[in-house]
């Protein structure tokens, strides 16, 4: 019964998803609201269940997955973010010809996949979780299939994602071939025996990390991100930039720490390169963007770079700083994309240009203030709460003696601040453009308010509980 209790959240989501898929198939479009709200309910139940055995049951299924504090921390970010993605779609797909009831079901499937990703302790379960997420994601990206941009995004994501999966599998097969095991502890033991001198192991490590870097959209595997984010329907973009990103980062942390721990010196330089390249490319490439979704795509690349700085620092402090960073990043990004969802012209058609934000602070002061809070927070300017996770990862880097890395990274924040500031400038300093239509989604409004409050200076009250949780989660890896 142990595994049943420990994996209860995923089991509930999986069974629920299958049942709801049937409902959606039989009842058709009419069932969309019911299926959506039931999916949200399932995700909430799954999140609540995390407080039980799933956070401390240890290895289950013969060591294929581990239900520990780390996995529970990841799922506690992923499930609510997925729920928000379902709520965000409310009122979005009804306008088109799409069959909207399948959207929440796909999100549920990907949530199961992400749950497996963060708790996997075996390369095979890692791959299964990743593919479950990816297949659902490809469909989600092309969800508005009559829309050229959406179809293009889906195709691009699929082709490149399949390539990345291939790279990942090749890395896994090399590691398996040279060590004879797929479990993380087994890999760690093999690396400890041979060091990182075995060329085969090194190759496997590099391919494995490349595959993961694709999923977190770290430079140089980021090319798909802006196109997919721009082309996918906005609720899907909201989903892509939060939950899967968090899941892939956490998976990366677990693989690096548990599986490749003894080879830290080998992967650290890769991570450092990816971190700095992501920070600088994410910051510089965002300068010229005129579409807010593309801008936020580069912002997510930039932010992944900062999270990777924490990973490069290594050790429990480093892992804990990554967890802290991701938790706050997800809240900020959810809020920012919810604001993007609200950008509708007077006919209710979505607009995505930065120019349409012009003078928003006069026509919609509260909306503008919320978006400004998210922008300053993403830029990491105190007193917004987004400053603290940056401080935490730089603190981890300096504790690990990586002072030059910290200096380079923090200079990247200044470059990045420029384009966040551009959004603020357009909203506050420019003359008003045509006002947006008022949204009729009170739940989304409430979510914007709640996320804005969390990343405002009020968030500082959460530092202690959040860092305790992150420390405990990171501690379960060592």
């Amino acid at each position, binding site marked *: 019964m142990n595994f049943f209790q420990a994996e209860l959240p995923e089991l509930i989501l999986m069974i629920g998803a299958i049942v709801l898929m049937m409902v959606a198939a039989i009842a058709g479009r009419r069932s969309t609201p019911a299926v959506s709200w039931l999916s949200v309910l399932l995700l909430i139940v799954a999140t609540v269940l995390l407080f039980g055995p799933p956070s401390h049951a240890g290895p289950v299924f013969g060591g294929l997955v581990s239900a520990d504090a780390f996995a529970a921390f990841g799922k506690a970010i992923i499930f609510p973010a997925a729920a928000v993605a379902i709520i965000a779609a409310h009122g979005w797909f009804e306008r088109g010809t799409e069959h909207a009831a399948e959207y929440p079901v796909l999100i549920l499937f990907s949530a199961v996949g992400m749950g497996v990703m963060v708790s996997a302790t075996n390369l095979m379960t890692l791959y299964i979780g990743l593919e479950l997420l990816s297949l659902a994601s490809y469909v989600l990206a092309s969800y508005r299939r009559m829309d050229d941009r959406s179809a293009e995004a889906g195709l691009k994501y699929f082709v490149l994602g399949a390539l990345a999966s291939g790279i990942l599998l090749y890395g896994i097969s090399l590691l398996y071939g040279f060590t004879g095991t797929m479990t993380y502890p087994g890999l760690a033991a093999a690396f400890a025996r041979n060091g990182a001198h075995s060329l085969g192991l090194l190759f496997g490590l590099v391919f494995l990390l490349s595959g993961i870097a694709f999923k977190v959209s770290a430079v140089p595997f980021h090319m798909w991100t802006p196109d997919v984010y721009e082309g996918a329907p906005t609720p899907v973009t909201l989903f892509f930039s939060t939950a899967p990103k968090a899941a892939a980062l956490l998976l990366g942390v677990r693989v690096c720490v548990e599986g490749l721990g003894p080879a830290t010196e080998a992967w650290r330089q890769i991570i450092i390169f990816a971190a700095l390249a992501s920070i600088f490319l994410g910051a510089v490439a965002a300068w010229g963007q005129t579409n807010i979704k593309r801008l936020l795509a580069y912002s997510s690349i930039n932010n992944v770079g900062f999270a990777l700085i924490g990973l490069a620092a290594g050790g429990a402090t480093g892992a804990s700083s990554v967890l802290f960073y991701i938790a706050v990043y997800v809240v900020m990004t959810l809020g920012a994309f919810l604001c993007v969802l609200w950008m509708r012209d007077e006919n209710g058609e979505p607009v995505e240009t930065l120019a349409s934000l012009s003078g928003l602070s006069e026509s919609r002061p509260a909306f503008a203030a919320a978006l400004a809070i998210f922008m300053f927070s993403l830029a990491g300017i105190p007193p917004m709460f987004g400053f603290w996770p940056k*401080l935490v990862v730089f603190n981890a880097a300096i504790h690990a003696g990586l002072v030059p890395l910290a200096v380079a990274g923090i200079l990247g924040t200044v470059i990045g601040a420029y384009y966040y500031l551009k959004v603020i400038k357009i909203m506050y300093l420019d003359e008003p453009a045509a006002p947006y239509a008022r949204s009729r989604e009170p739940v989304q409004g409430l979510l914007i308010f709640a996320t804005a409050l969390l990343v405002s200076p009020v968030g500082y009250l959460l530092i202690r509980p959040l860092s305790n949780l992150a420390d405990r989660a990171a501690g379960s890896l060592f």
Partner: protein
Amino acid sequence: MIGLPVLTLMIAIPLLAGLICLFVNASAARWTALIATFLDLALGVYLWAGFVPGGPQWQFVEHIALAGNFSWALGIDGIALTLTMLTVFLMPICIGASWRSIVKRVPEYMAAFMLMEALMVGVFAAQDLFLFYVFFEGGLIPMYLIIGVWGGVERVKASYKFFLYTLLGSVLMLIAMIYMVATSGTTSIPALMQYNFPAEVQQWLWLAFLASFAVKLPMWPVHTWLPDAHVQAPTAGSVILAGVLLKMGGYGFVRFSLPMFPDASAQFMPLMFVLSGIAVVYTSLVALVQRDMKKLIAYSSVAHMAFVTFGLFAFNRQGIEGALIVMLSHGLVSGALFLVVGVIYDRLHTREIAVYGGLANNMPGYALLFMLFTMASVGLPGTSGFVGEFLSLIGTYQMSTWGAIAATTGIILGAAYMLWLYWRICFGAARTPEAATMADLSAREWWLLAPIAVGVMWMGIYPESFLRPMRADVGRIVERVQHSRPIGDSRPAGAAAQTIQVAGAAR
């Protein structure tokens, strides 16, 4: 002391008022802001009255642990006390100065000023390294909006320049702070002021802090954001910028650089003197040729701030006390000068010097106050400017004759550009008919300028009121830097030891 958390209140009241401002109409927002600033002023007076000079170093201490090392730790010493007083004194004047001249989006404007006040008080009161950083950096957001939304024609460029320049300086300081905490294991500023960092580490930390404070102060050659920001900001924004924000740089040197890294401070003393010397001469010359009144005063600010760095890095009591008085005096005088410019700007909507002239005829009251502040800026005895600059020069001379020569040149040039400005605006014949018919100061404008005039005279005639609370703290800093004090070029090496004895005896 009774357990009233005065400093927390001084931060909370403006924050609350700012929040209220956002939800009311323009007139109510003005009154809310004014009442809040007066409440803060009252609390400031309470602080001043309750502060015991020569008592414990840190008074009105509050401490609530938040997480790990990070804590809500507040407390002031004499230096922070005087700067806090300056802040709460200038704020009601700023609100008054914006009463009529700001008509666009008043509630947001007042809210931004309220947030600004809370953050400025926080900077001077913070006793936790990261808390200090949060307050220090947080000021960027409201100031960016104040310049950007309510500023002049080129406000966008100016606000960007202000934001990115200052941010670039500060992030390096953040890295240094994290490093300090990692090494020493504490975030407490008082504890760090006693901590001895290894000399080779001090250099890097000192340079990282310099990057931040040099931009903020500002020092030559990173001063170029200042003229733009000053010229484009609304009058009250310039007052706060010149009056308080620039002081954060000087405060940073005296709170962090000198006591935490005395060896590095001594090592880099020549650098500071060279930069200050260039700043004082160069920016004074630049100020001479300005056609825009605000720009002229902005450049004069850079020159005056050089007296602060001269005085602080002279490593002696006179120098440091002088630097602190220059900071206070400049806060009042430059604030007042920007208000004086604002008065005529509100009437003719131009800052071009050439448009005015002969104002002494139709605006005698204005000419009188303008004269007083001009003299204070020049450093005439009897005004606050004299006390600070004189003490700072005495200190500088003991360390470096060349530095003192450069600084004195600056005083002469300062007299030149200020008196010439005054002559062109107030004397002679009016150059335009509009200038000749402008009305004299209104009652509101008298109420704005007269308190500053009183402050300037008070500080000039009886500076002891302001020096007394700082004396013990300056003594502690001098003592802390004593062992690494450079010998200087003003006297033979043998005589240096004698000076130390004399200084010791005086204490």
